[in-house]
């Protein structure tokens, strides 16, 4: 799992530009899939299990990550940029971005009379270090930060949602056989509004939908106490977030499977944010949906942190769920 995360997190894939990460995932799943397709928006759709048998189950983990898009360049090697997804200005300052061609730029700010105040993205620029940088308006970059192994915890950029991607890959590899028709969807454009999952869900028309994504945390100093999720206590089974009320039968299925298999889990009530499960739930005439979350600190910063055991347990839980009949 660690090796998988080390590889997956370091490949750039800002929303809309997921081709590099998609090809890497395709290589990782090729030996375990019954069928692999890429749809019109670039979702990678991996089928496991015979078509037509059991339930049609869609799993989704998004390949894309937040990033930036260049909106202006000048003759001195500076670029202005727009956010792709939920980019937090205070995480940007002093940070680095890496363009898809490998070029690195650093983010800093215009001089200001009040340096204590966090500037807006409009007041920042990317310093490309040279006027001959080959970067133009419309080029995209991902935040750049290495993967660090801290033992049980790992730190990297883009654990949101390469952690979910790794969980899906790991579950697929563990799943020797399934009585269902399971679609592992590595989705695009989640960070800009669950767009990839919207079209993939329409295309697949599943009976059940499950997203695997990171969630907030409640175990650092002075964090709001209502977030009752901690790193290392197991995957979080989502009851609700601000975009979705998980289907109770899906929640019960997750909990009973975890309890029978002796897999630790937490119950998650997230106040803000949502996942691909929202898009699946509202697809066509409606789909029972839920989410298995990996607790993650500092989401959307370049140094996100998860507990590796939570990811391993999430994969084990998914594999256990998919290897038996669905209880509804």
């Amino acid at each position, binding site marked *: 799992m660690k090796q998988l995360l080390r590889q997956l997190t370091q490949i750039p894939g800002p929303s809309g*530009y997921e081709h590099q990460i998609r090809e890497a995932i395709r290589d990782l799943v090729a030996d375990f899939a019954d069928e692999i397709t890429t749809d*019109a*928006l670039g979702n990678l759709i991996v089928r496991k299990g015979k078509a037509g048998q059991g339930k049609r189950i869609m799993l989704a983990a998004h390949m894309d990550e937040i990033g930036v898009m260049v909106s202006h360049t000048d003759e001195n090697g500076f670029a*202005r940029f727009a956010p792709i997804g939920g980019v937090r200005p205070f995480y940007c300052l002093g940070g680095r971005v890496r363009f898809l061609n490998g070029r690195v730029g650093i983010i800093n700010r215009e001089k200001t009379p009040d340096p204590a105040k966090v500037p807006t993205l409009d007041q920042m620029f990317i310093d490309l270090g040279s006027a001959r940088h080959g970067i*133009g*308006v*419309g080029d995209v970059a991902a935040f750049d930060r290495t993967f660090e192994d801290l033992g049980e915890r790992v730190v990297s950029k883009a654990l949101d949602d390469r952690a979910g991607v790794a969980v899906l890959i790991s579950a697929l590899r563990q799943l020797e056989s399934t009585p269902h028709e399971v679609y592992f969807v590595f989705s695009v454009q989640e960070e800009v509004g669950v*767009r990839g999952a919207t*079209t993939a869900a329409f295309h697949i028309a599943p009976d059940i939908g499950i997203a695997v994504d990171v969630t907030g945390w409640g175990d650092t100093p002075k964090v709001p106490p209502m977030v009752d999720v901690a790193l290392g206590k197991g995957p979080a089974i989502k009851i609700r977030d601000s975009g979705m009320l998980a289907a109770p039968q899906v929640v019960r299925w997750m909990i009973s499977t975890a309890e029978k298999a002796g897999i630790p889990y937490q119950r998650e009530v997230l106040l803000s944010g949502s996942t691909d499960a929202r898009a699946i739930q509202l697809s066509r005439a409606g789909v029972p949906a839920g989410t298995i979350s990996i607790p993650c600190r500092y989401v959307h910063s370049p140094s996100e942190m998860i507990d590796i055991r939570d990811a391993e347990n999430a994969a084990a839980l998914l594999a256990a769920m998919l290897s038996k009949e669905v209880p509804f």
Partner: protein
Amino acid sequence: MFSFDFPPFGARQLRLLERLTNAVAVSGDEGAVRKIVLEHVRPLADEVRVDALGNVLAVKRGTASPRLRVMVAAHMDEIGFMLTRDEGKGLFRFGKVGGIDTRNILGKAVWVGPDHIPGVIGMTPIHLTTSVSRKQVPGLDTLRIDVGPGNAGKVKPGMRAAFATEYVRLGPSIRAKALDDRLGVATLIELLRRAPENLDLLAAFTVQEEVGLRGAQVAAFAMEPDIAFVLDCTHAVDVPHPDGEPNTRYNTRLGHGPAIYTGDRATLSDPRLIHHLVETTEAAGLPYQFRQAGGGGTDAGAIHKQRGGIPSVSVSTPARYLHTTASIARVDDWKHTFYLVWAALKRLTPQVLRH
């Protein structure tokens, strides 16, 4: 290599644009523009229908095999007002339809209803205001559309109103209301007139874009295209910066050619289609600019998420002062927008989606 024998573009197209911009089609009430569109596209297309929401959906089939089904959309509607209450003697309360800054509407002349009844959004004269009140933007509840008692009987709550601005040609420029998006509508009519044979052209003249891309949503579902191009009109905020600093947030610039979208708040353009457009400008020797990434949205925002996903990109003609009384665009930018999309369609094959 293609040779591009560009169709003529001039007086005839400008006359069409004049008719289209002088017509009023506030979101939800697009009949006046739809009538002009139908009149033009009926003789040009193989199939024309008006759907349940009022979109005009026209199909012009190609002959090549295999060929792509390519949706091209432009919205017929414009921002404006809706009358909400008759207060007698020709005074009406009203609400806004679409994105309008109240500062832009004070004291402006309007046309009300299908017969263009003249009215005005009244404003207190300077003599009766104070230095403090002049710094405040009046609330919409304090403003009225005044058509006078003589025409009061012809105006009813529920009717729409639009800025009373007549089209004017100003040398290389056009000044008109609703260039957003009659420029796109006129371009799309011309594309149907010159439809290339290598694809099925699915032309969608959409309704209710200004209130949330509503017409395009159902049009894309119904048409089920392989890919989509959206023709819109985008802001040029290219006037010099007031404090002399370089202007780095211009969105687009007049005179720099059609604006290709890379990403806005509603859509990340399909990279393959961006590439195809840029390659077309190079092959055809046309100017272009990228619209600056950032906010805003076009019908592509609704189209690309329909069904199993539809790769989409937008191309806009730049114009200044959109969503106000009068906008300014350059004839050459418009001509080059038409040429770019026409040429891009002409050299489009299923290969474009290969990578």
